[in-house]
């Protein structure tokens, strides 16, 4: 912290402490609140608490039994080999029994919570989703201007739209928080009159998930056409399993939505930079920029995929793209799933320059899926990256020559 930081800290502390009326207001408010009759709700919540406690106690007992059983094996090992063999056999059976009971208990917990394996559903309030496998997802459908504003308070990156624009647009926004790191939204599918959001678990097993208990916020913009009245949320063990589960990969979904300028019409998916900073949602300006770019003027675009798993939209704001004087026009967008951590791919006007960005905290090496490479969707392979500023997201700039060599 430098001097200015220290002073600012001190000033802000004083500023936010400086209130004389707060106590009176709080006391008055508490006195005036019409108090509720909680009788009916009490029973339900207390019961849930009791169930929670009973489950916790049972799990503790089972764990203790497991540990003690294991201890018994070790003790037997020290004293007598013969006895140890018998004890081991017996205890192994005990552990198996205990584990069976644990499994049974877990299933009961799921049933008690009203959850179905691997599927979470929106609650009646439309703002909460539960998952099994130790993962909770809180999600809110943003289909009204009020909800959009509420969420903009916490998520300033949501598109700025008026009530009319939201009503007329062909999008629905989902804002959510997953209480786990390493879970990634993979796909949106319309199936049997339901919209299914597919999340993959990139961490693997449930032990790792439990240890990495972190919030992971996301928002997703989805064309209304793709949304049925019912929403479901599915959780799949790994990205490789998508096809096994009969899901259509994201990349095969309605990419025409983007290409046939629907996205441009709706404005929600395009960002561009001007000298005044990042701008959103203005078709005219975007067209103007495309023209400028074609005329060789310095412009920078970012075409955000319609399915955005993170706040990568901030990248341009935080990088000196203009200083770098990149000349780019977006002509295509691809989506790469899984380990590649690719968020956008941009082509230069000559079709050879590529701009890619990813978010700090993910893998430091970027590579493009060989499949995509071979299909010709992407012309060049990127393998290097550098960090502009530790404070900000890492960015990757690359220009490709004919021989495939990159210059940063």
């Amino acid at each position, binding site marked *: 912290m430098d001097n*200015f*930081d220290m002073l*600012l*800290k001190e*000033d*802000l*502390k*004083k*500023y*936010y*402490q*400086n*209130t004389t*009326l*707060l*106590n009176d*207001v*709080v006391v*008055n*408010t*508490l006195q005036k*609140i019409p*108090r*509720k009759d*909680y*009788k009916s*709700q*009490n029973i339900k*919540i*207390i019961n849930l*608490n009791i169930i929670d406690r009973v489950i916790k106690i049972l799990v503790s007992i089972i764990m203790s039994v497991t540990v003690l059983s294991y201890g018994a094996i070790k003790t037997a090992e020290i004293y007598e080999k013969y006895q140890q063999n018998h004890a081991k056999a017996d205890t192994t059976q005990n552990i198996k029994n205990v584990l069976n009971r644990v499994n049974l208990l877990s299933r009961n917990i799921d049933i008690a919570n009203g959850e179905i394996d691997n599927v979470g559903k929106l609650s009646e*309030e439309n703002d*909460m989703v539960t998952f099994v496998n130790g993962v*909770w997802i809180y999600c809110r459908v943003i289909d009204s201007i009020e909800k959009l*504003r*509420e969420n903009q*308070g*916490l*998520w*300033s990156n949501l598109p700025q739209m008026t009530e009319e624009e939201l009503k007329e647009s062909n999008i629905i926004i989902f804002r959510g*928080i997953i209480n786990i790191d390493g879970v990634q939204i993979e796909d949106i599918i319309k199936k049997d009159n339901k919209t299914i959001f597919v999340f993959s678990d990139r961490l693997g097993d449930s032990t790792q998930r439990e240890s990495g208990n*972190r*919030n992971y*916020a996301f928002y997703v913009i989805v064309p209304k056409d793709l949304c049925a009245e019912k929403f479901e949320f599915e959780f799949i063990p790994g990205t490789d399993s998508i096809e096994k589960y009969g899901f259509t990969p994201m990349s095969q979904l309605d990419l025409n939505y983007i290409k046939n300028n629907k996205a441009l019409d709706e404005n929600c998916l395009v960002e561009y930079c001007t000298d005044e900073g990042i701008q959103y949602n203005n078709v005219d300006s975007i067209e103007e920029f495309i023209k400028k770019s074609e005329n060789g003027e310095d412009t920078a675009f970012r075409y955000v995929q319609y399915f955005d798993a*993170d*706040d990568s939209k*901030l990248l341009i*704001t*935080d990088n000196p793209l203009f200083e770098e004087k990149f000349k780019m026009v977006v002509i295509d967008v691809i989506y790469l799933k899984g380990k590649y951590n690719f968020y956008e791919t941009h082509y230069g006007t000559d079709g050879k320059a590529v701009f890619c960005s990813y*978010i*700090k*905290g993910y893998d430091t090496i970027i590579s493009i899926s060989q499949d995509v490479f071979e299909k010709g969707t992407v012309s060049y392979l990127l393998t290097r990256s550098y960090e502009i500023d530790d*404070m*900000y*997201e890492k960015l990757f700039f690359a220009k490709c020559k004919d021989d495939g060599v990159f210059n940063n």
Partner: protein
Amino acid sequence: MAKRQIKKYINKARIGNDEAFDQLIDIIKMDIYKIAKSRLLNEEDTLDAVQESIISMYENICKLRNVNKFYNWMTIIVINACNDIAKKRSKNIEEFNEEIIDKDSKEKKEFNDSLINKLILEEALSKIDKDDRMLLMFYYSEGYSAKEIEKLTGIKENTVRSKIMRAKEKIKEFYKEQEVN
């Protein structure tokens, strides 16, 4: 106050224990106030927002499912209350700020040095977006780390850092301008 104690109050309040709710509010009232003030700046509106937030929390605490998310839940309620107040008064926060600035410049001369400092800080804060002000408050006044702010607000750690950095630069610039003038 130990976290366990706060959790105890939250749990009791969730099942309708009014006394626990009152005690909980007594503990967190300053947190509510600071979030509201960081967004509204104006003292009167801030106190209104505190009032609305407490009522809303009372109405909804029985729906809170995860006690560990209490602070996130509270932050959202306060932000909503602030937005409602700004909306009800049919003027946006920028207008408030203009008023504050006008009022400030008229009255500056009559106040002593420390008050002038406060007014200058308030004016500097009014130049910053309300979301960024809240982040500044969490970071500097409350001493939260960027990681903790991410947990609280859902805004990514790196984004929090860059927003705080930019807000700080704006304040710095504003102070420099003041010195020149």
